[in-house]
């Protein structure tokens, strides 16, 4: 089964290009025929000349980013983007969600939907759609939200997930919190699952774990792409009965987004280190998983600076200090000896809400093929309180700005009213409250 990706705006396109690069080089690494075949079918189709073409549609309201993505992909010569599956205009949405959603959305809907339809028809079977975008700009967030809505209508029974990049908290776009609120509130109604990477967190991984001195967006994107690759590449799942699972999106959603109030997913992975250090390090599954588990319950996205004091609360009680409670977790193990690993540490009922039994709350996927140079590696996708704090910050800052009505005139100009903002705030306060009260 195949996944059709839609890359939107500067961020979505830059992350997407990095992702396909990771997927392709991983699939073609070494002797792994079955794995390669499934991965390629999932994310690429073959042209008449036998070349790999990404199952992707590229969208931006300005031309420069897409031109660069397309030419970079072509230059690497392992894969490319389809020549008729990108759409760009001359000028971006100006960081204005309303411009992307109310103006560009309706104007370009038909062309773009047709491009997606063509990609979907190229798939023998569709596992789902994945839209990649940032929430801070105007195109990814505004147009992306509009398009997600159109796709929901056009593919009512398919799975649609969104991969969102959350902005650095000291901004790059001043209205980023407004754009984020408008995006998240709507996507929460439309999307089956929302996978989030925070730029601040990934930036820290680049500097503290990977020791990169001058961090560029391309470094950040590589980390995001590798974590996503760890999730999306073939694996044996709970229900795949000893075969590679056919449908990653489908199984991702059903493992993690079991309740419509809870669909924010965060990702962490281990190990992450400069490639020069890998050769000098030995990994053991118990060690890796012990760290990963503590990263989960203490809500640290890095294996450095973990707070080992945090423990799940014993007995009743909703909160332990600093404890991160989960709705559901998906643990993906790749590499040597995966079959004999012990994952019961992630099964403890005290990690989870009381209403979902822990046997249902935890899913483990395994794959004996090592991923990205690591002999053993684990990725954890978590539907938990982990994103509560950053979400709360976004809403708080947007609300503070809204109280003085700053910048609102820019949105009203394109047809988004104060009422629309209030609806957005209300919806997200509801999400915050649900995650807060998780017990």
């Amino acid at each position, binding site marked *: 089964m195949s996944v059709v990706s839609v890359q939107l705006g500067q961020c979505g396109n*830059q992350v997407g290009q990095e992702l396909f690069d990771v997927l392709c080089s991983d699939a073609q690494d070494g002797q792994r025929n079955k794995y390669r075949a499934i991965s390629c079918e999932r994310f690429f189709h073959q042209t008449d000349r036998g070349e790999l073409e990404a199952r992707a549609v590229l969208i931006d309201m300005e031309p420069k980013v897409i031109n660069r993505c397309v030419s970079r992909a072509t230059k690497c010569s392992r894969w490319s983007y389809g020549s008729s599956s990108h759409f760009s205009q001359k*000028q971006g949405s100006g*960081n204005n969600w309303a411009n992307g959603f109310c103006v560009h959305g309706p104007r370009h809907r038909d062309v773009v939907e047709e491009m997606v339809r063509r990609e979907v028809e190229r798939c023998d079977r569709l596992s789902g759609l994945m839209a990649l975008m940032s929430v801070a700009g105007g195109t990814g967030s505004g147009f992306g939200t509009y398009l997600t809505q159109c796709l929901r209508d056009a593919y009512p029974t398919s799975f649609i997930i969104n991969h969102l990049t959350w902005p650095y908290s000291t901004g790059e*776009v*001043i209205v980023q919190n407004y754009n984020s609120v408008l995006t998240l509130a709507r996507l929460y109604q439309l999307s089956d699952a929302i996978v989030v990477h925070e730029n601040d967190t990934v930036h820290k991984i680049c500097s503290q774990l990977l020791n*990169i001195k001058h961090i560029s967006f391309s470094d950040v994107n590589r980390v995001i792409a590798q974590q996503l690759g760890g999730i999306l590449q073939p694996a044996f799942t709970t229900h795949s009965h000893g075969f590679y699972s056919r449908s990653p999106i489908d199984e991702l959603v059903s493992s993690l987004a079991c309740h419509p109030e809870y669909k924010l997913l965060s990702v962490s992975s281990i190990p992450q280190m400069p490639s020069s250090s890998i050769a000098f390090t030995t990994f053991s599954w118990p060690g890796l998983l012990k760290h990963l588990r503590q990263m989960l319950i203490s809500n640290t996205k890095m294996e450095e600076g973990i707070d080992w004091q945090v423990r799940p609360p014993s007995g009743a009680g909703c909160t332990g200090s600093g404890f991160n409670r989960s709705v559901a977790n998906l643990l993906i193990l790749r590499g040597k000896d995966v079959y004999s690993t012990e994952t019961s540490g992630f099964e403890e009922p005290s990690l989870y809400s009381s209403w979902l039994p822990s046997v249902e709350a935890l899913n483990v996927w395994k794959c004996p093929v090592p991923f990205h140079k690591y002999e053993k590696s684990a990725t954890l996708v978590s539907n938990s309180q982990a994103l509560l704090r950053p979400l709360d910050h976004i809403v708080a800052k947007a609300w*503070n700005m809204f109280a003085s009505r*700053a910048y609102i005139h820019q949105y009203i100009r394109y047809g988004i009213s104060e009422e629309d903002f209030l609806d957005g705030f209300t919806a997200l306060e509801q999400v915050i409250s649900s995650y807060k009260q998780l017990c």
Partner: protein
Amino acid sequence: MEEGVVNEILQGPLREVFDSTQLLTDVSGSGNNWAVGHLTYGLAYREQIVDKLRRAAEHCDCLQGFFIIHSMGGGTGSGLGTRVLSLLEEEFPSVSRIVTAIYPSTEDDVITSPYNSVLAMRELSEHADCVLPVENQSLLDIVNKIKVMADGAKPGSVIKRDSTIISGQGGLTGPEKPFDAMNNIVANLLLNITSSARFEGSLNTDLNEIAMNLVPFPRLHYLVPSLTPLYTLADVSVPSRRLDQMFSDAFNKDHQLIRADPKHSLYLACALMVRGNVQVSDLRRNIERLRPTLPFVSWNQEGWKTGLCSVPPVGHSHSLLALANNTCVKPTFIELRERFNKLYRKKAHLHHYLHVEGMEQSLFSEAVASLSSLIDEYQLLDASKGRLTPDAARLSIAT
């Protein structure tokens, strides 16, 4: 409206650049009188102006914005220029209008410049999307600073050839005219504003993002520009310190293109548009370093807009344009109002204006009232500075 300047350009090295059918001149000039420019010529040339604007627009496959460049103190630029501004608003309401306005210095050669400036200010407040105020005195100070540096060069601090923002790098150079060095600074300002829309980068900034990010309320759209570095030293030994210095300088008084001190006033928003080999980690490091020293309005504590364009300006390895929406413009406006009132109280030169068909005294009083209310808006924000503003109470959800 005084053909001399245009003719001079047409005989100069840049004559090829301009389309001769798109010129509009008169012979007699506006006599440093806003009313003549705005009303007399505004009416007489209206059709022709609109025609030429439409023609220019038809040649664009995607019209992103208009740059309007004029002085505030004279008659044509301030009068007819602001007339063109409102014509643009009528003809192309959705295309952004960015005005670069040259404000008169205290010792200006034009006696009526306070009148002209205040009358023009009202138009700018009402019809522009953004105004980039530039003061001749500041340009002059920068020019002198660079000249001193270039003349008294000590060993180790030799300025690299053609790397100052006053040299017409890349352009055509002829014998220098009095304003040339100063005008090159303004030209660099406009080049840097548009660079991210013209060249690729890892974080692009289109022209329409500037107003979106920097203008929280429609009338508060005066953005103080600063450009760094002013020159590149020939010695290239300490690149990263120089990079951080570039960020520090952008907030210093003597790098602003108007005489103003943003650091000791209040920021509503700030854009950093970087060119050259600069990564997101350099941006983050410098924002984190500088943030504690800069006062921001309570509802926009993280009011930074950033852009990364990978192509540096000719002669530099990197450059920075900062645009600050900052209450530091207030003193300039107050001073302008004082100079206006000094003349207006004595009714000095008023008759030159009132002679002009369509000009009424009420336009003077309305213009100064508009300026006063703008000053009050900045004052109100200034007063909030340092006061602890509690966060707005959040929406509560019935559970």
